[in-house]
C-alpha cells in the first residue's frame, strides 16, 4: 500500500514535470537544428541559427530596446510603488482605501484593455507611438505590482527602528532613504526584477503602442509569420536564458541569504 502510493506520487511528478518541460526542451533542442525546419528528426547540433540571430540587426536592436524599456520603466514603477507604500504604511490617511484600490486597479484589467485605452488616448491628443509610450504603458502595469510587494513587506516591526532614527535627529528623507529603504531592500529588489521580467516579456501593450522601434516580443511576433523556423527557436532560447539567469540570481542572492525557511507553527 505504502509502496503503491510512492509509485503513484513519483509517476505524477514525472508526468507533470514532463508536461511542464516538454515545450521548453523542444524549443531549446531544435534551436540547435542543422536543417531548415525545427521538427523531428533532430540533425544537429549546430550553432548556425544563433549566429543568424546575432547577425540580424532587427533582432539585436529589438533586444536592446526591450532591455532599455524594461530597466527604465521598472525603475519608475519601483519608485512610484515604494513612495506610495511608504505613505500608506507610515501615515494615518483617512479615506486611503479607495485610493489604494485605484492604484492597484490595473492589476485586474487585461493588458489588452490597458494598451488599447492608452492607444486611443494618445491618438486623440496626437502623441505618436514610440518606445516611450510603451514604457509608459509598462509603468502602468508594474506600479501596482511593485506597490503591492513593497507594501506587504512594510511591517510595524520596522517602525521602532525608524522612530529611533528620528529620535537620533534624522529628518524624514534621511529616515526613508537610509533606514526604511535599506531594510526593505530585498522586497524592493524582488519587485524591481519581477517588473523587469514582466516588462521585457510583455507583448500586447508593446505591440499596440510601438511603431518603428519595437521590443523583442513584437519582433519575435513578426518572425512567427514565416512559420516554424529554427531561428525563432534560437531567439526564444536566448530570451529564456536571460530570464532564468535573472530569476536564479534573485533566488540565490536575495532569498538564500537568511536561514532556510521553516514552517510557521
Amino acid at each position, binding site marked *: 500500500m505504502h509502496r503503491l502510493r510512492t509509485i503513484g506520487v513519483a509517476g505524477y511528478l514525472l508526468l507533470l514535470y514532463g508536461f511542464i518541460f516538454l515545450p521548453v526542451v523542444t524549443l531549446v533542442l531544435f534551436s540547435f537544428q542543422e536543417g531548415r525546419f525545427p521538427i523531428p528528426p533532430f540533425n544537429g547540433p549546430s550553432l548556425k541559427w544563433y549566429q543568424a540571430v546575432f547577425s540580424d540587426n532587427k533582432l539585436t536592436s529589438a533586444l536592446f530596446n526591450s532591455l532599455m524599456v524594461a530597466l527604465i520603466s521598472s525603475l519608475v514603477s519601483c519608485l512610484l510603488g515604494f513612495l506610495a507604500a511608504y505613505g500608506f504604511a507610515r501615515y494615518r490617511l483617512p479615506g486611503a482605501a479607495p485610493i489604494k484600490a485605484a492604484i492597484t486597479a490595473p492589476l485586474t484589467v487585461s493588458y489588452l484593455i490597458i494598451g*488599447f485605452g492608452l492607444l486611443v488616448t494618445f491618438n486623440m491628443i496626437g502623441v505618436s507611438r514610440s518606445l516611450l509610450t510603451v514604457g509608459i504603458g509598462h*509603468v502602468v502595469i508594474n506600479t501596482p505590482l511593485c506597490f503591492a510587494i513593497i507594501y506587504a513587506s512594510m511591517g510595524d516591526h520596522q517602525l521602532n527602528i525608524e522612530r529611533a532614527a528620528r529620535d537620533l535627529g534624522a529628518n524624514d528623507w534621511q529616515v526613508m532613504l537610509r533606514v526604511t529603504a535599506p531594510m526593505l531592500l530585498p522586497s524592493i529588489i524582488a519587485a524591481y526584477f519581477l517588473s523587469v521580467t514582466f516588462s521585457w516579456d510583455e507583448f500586447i501593450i508593446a505591440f499596440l503602442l510601438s511603431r518603428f522601434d519595437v521590443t523583442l516580443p513584437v519582433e519575435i511576433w513578426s518572425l512567427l509569420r514565416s512559420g516554424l523556423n529554427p531561428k525563432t527557436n534560437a531567439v526564444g532560447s536566448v530570451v529564456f536564458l536571460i530570464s532564468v539567469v535573472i530569476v536564479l540570481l534573485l533566488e540565490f542572492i536575495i532569498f538564500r541569504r537568511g536561514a532556510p525557511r521553516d514552517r510557521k507553527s
Partner: protein
Amino acid sequence: MPSEAALQRKGWAFVVPALLWTLAFFIIPFAVMVMYSLWQRAGTSLVKTWSFDNYASFFEKSHFVAGLINSLEITALVTVISIVLAYPLAWIIAERVSPRWQRMALILAILPFWTSYVVRSYAWLLVLSRNGYLNQTLINLGVIDTPLEIAATRVATVTGFVHFFVMLLTLTIYANLVQLSPNYRRAAADLGANGFQTFWHVILPLTIPGVMVGAFLTFVLCIGDYITPQILGGNNELVLPQIIMLQITRRADFPTAAALSIILMVVISIAYIACARWLKMERT
C-alpha cells in the same frame, strides 16, 4: 510635534506620484475608451454623437456573441483543468518532498514560466503541429497512423493555457499549503481522522481561499489573452480578445473595439465580485 493635518499632507505627498500616474495613464484612458465606445465609425471618420449602437450591435452580430461564449468556455475549461492538475503537484511538493528540496522542486516546476509569452505558445506549436514532436512520437510508437490535427484547434489553445496556469496555480496553492499550521493536522489525527479524512475535511477547506485567488488570476489572465489563442488556436474559433484585435488592427474600428473591451471588462468585474471575499489584500 507637527499637527495631524500636516502629517496627513506629508503622507499624501508620498502617494501622489503613483496616484497621478494611475490617473493620467489608466483612469483617463479608460474614460476616453468609454467615450469612444459611445461614438460611431463612419468610413474613415468618427461620428461623435453618443449612442449605445455599438453595444446593441454586439448582441445582434452572432460572431461577437460566439466570441464571448468561446472565451467563457475556454476559460472555464482551463481554470478547472489547471486546478485539478496543479493541486496534487503543489501538495506533493509541500508534503512528500523533503524540506531541503522543496524550494528546488518549486523553482523547477515554475521555471518555464519565465519563457517569453510569445515564445511559449510557439514552443507548443512545435510540439503539437502536424509534423511536430507529439505526432512523430505517436506514429513511431505505432499508436496512430495519420498525424492528429491538434494545432489550430481549441485543444491546442487549452493545452497552451493549461501549461501556463498549472505553473501559476502550483505556486499559489503551494504557498497556501505551507502556511497551514501543523496543529490542524495533529488535532485531526488526535480526533481519529485518517490521512484522507484529514485532507478532505481539514486541509482542503483551509486552502480554498488560496485556490480561489489562483482561480481568479487564471480567469482574468486567460479571458483577456490574445497571444495563446492567436498562435495556437488559429483563426477557427475566435475568442473575444482576437475579435477586439481584429477591430483595432484590420478594420481600425476603434469605437467597436472599445465597446467590446468594455464588455470584456464587465465580464471580468462580475468574476471579481464573485471572488471578492477571497481577494482582500493584507499587510503582514
